[in-house]
């Protein structure tokens, strides 16, 4: 049950990540950090402090050799249709109110209470414990497209929202409707840079976009789907054990998908 009134969207930007294609190389994580102006971390091995809007998890089927199998699961913010992070924010720093359904995060408005971090079941939110510091010369890698965040605020993946805006500007320049973007007009940095093409990005509501078809695949599933968060991010895998780890199944319950 939604605590607050959900908006209906005609466009829903979404992803389908093929876990059978993902090799766990981490190119998506790096592209995300470069794209979104993240300062290099003093100690990136310290997972309490590292900022990784996109994070690759390692899954294992837990069986001994020769049946052992692993999979990698990249996890950005899944842009819940019914986000837990939004109603808990006391200052409306995070909302889901723009056509496209991307959950916004306005860091200058955030007071750093971290309620949203506690509420997010996907651990997709990160707190800035330190001010970002760019070593001398590296500040040249900063882009004007994403605003940097100071110490004391929360941040998260926004599907490279600046690229969405840029795509709309380009459409306007070409005399096209900015609300009818093609699949190639807008994609995220992680999807663009994934060497195996495991990430597909597009409008889930537009039947002409690949994601719309892939999301309906019998192998598609969403993380913790039964929480009712209605994510705009799908995964797919032909391996049953991978799909089974996507949700909390009781022993006797069959796994979703074929």
């Amino acid at each position: 049950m939604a605590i607050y009134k959900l908006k209906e969207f005609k466009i829903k930007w979404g992803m389908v990540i093929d876990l059978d294609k993902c090799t766990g190389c981490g190119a998506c994580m790096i592209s995300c950090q470069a794209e979104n102006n993240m300062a290099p971390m003093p100690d990136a091995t310290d997972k309490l402090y590292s900022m990784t809007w996109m994070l690759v998890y390692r899954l294992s089927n837990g069986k001994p050799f020769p049946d052992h199998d692993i999979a990698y699961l990249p996890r950005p913010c899944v842009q819940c249709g019914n986000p837990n992070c939004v109603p808990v924010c006391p200052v409306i720093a995070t909302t889901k109110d723009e056509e496209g359904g991307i959950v916004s995060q306005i860091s200058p408005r955030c007071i750093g209470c971290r309620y949203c971090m506690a509420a997010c079941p996907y651990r997709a939110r990160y707190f800035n414990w330190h001010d970002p510091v760019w070593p001398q010369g590296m500040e040249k890698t900063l882009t004007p497209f994403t605003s940097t965040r100071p110490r004391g605020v929360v941040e998260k993946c926004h599907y490279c929202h600046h690229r969405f805006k840029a795509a709309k500007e380009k459409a306007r320049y070409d005399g096209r409707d900015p609300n009818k973007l093609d699949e190639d007009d807008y994609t995220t940095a992680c999807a663009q840079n994934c060497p195996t093409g495991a990430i597909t990005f597009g409008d889930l509501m537009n039947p002409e976009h690949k994601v719309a078809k892939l999301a309906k695949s019998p192998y598609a599933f969403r993380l913790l789907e039964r929480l009712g968060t209605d994510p705009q991010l799908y995964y797919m895998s032909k391996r049953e054990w991978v799909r089974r780890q996507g949700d909390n199944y009781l022993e006797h319950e069959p796994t979703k998908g074929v």
Partner: protein
Amino acid sequence: MAKKKKSYLLLPFVVGFIGALVFGWGLFPKMLFSEKQQPFWFSHISHVEVVGMDCYDCHYYYEDGSFSGIPTTEECSACHMDVMFDDPDEIIFVEQYVWEEKEVPWLIYQKQPDNVYFSHIAHEMYDCQTCHPAVETAEAWPKYYENRLTKYSRDTMKMWECERCHAETGTSNACYVCHK
């Protein structure tokens, strides 16, 4: 006797009230803003009416739909490689910026904070003067006031102004429409 005493009692409040008004309306704004000067005078009139240039010659859209804003020194030097009119402002521009290959540090009346996103092409149907001062007909720079605390221009459009226009025209006021 009792009446007189009462009026004396009120006096400090009246004085205090007037003092607060004078401070709040008169002194504080003066203290908060400092007046700044543009580097030199640039006449839009002489470029448009005398030379016959078009606004879009300098303020144009790139092919990706983004807006060029103020021309770079390199673009201006297409004409102003050398001093042409012996005008004191042109001499400053050519000698201190063109020859030194430096950008002019113009003060921008509407400069927005880093986390604000504004698309010129999405607002194309409006006159520039809806948001910008009418510099194209000005004989002198409008006064530029800088907020001493925030360092922003006093005339930078406030969020409520953006939101009001969006509300009036039925445009979305979702956070991510204007923020990044």
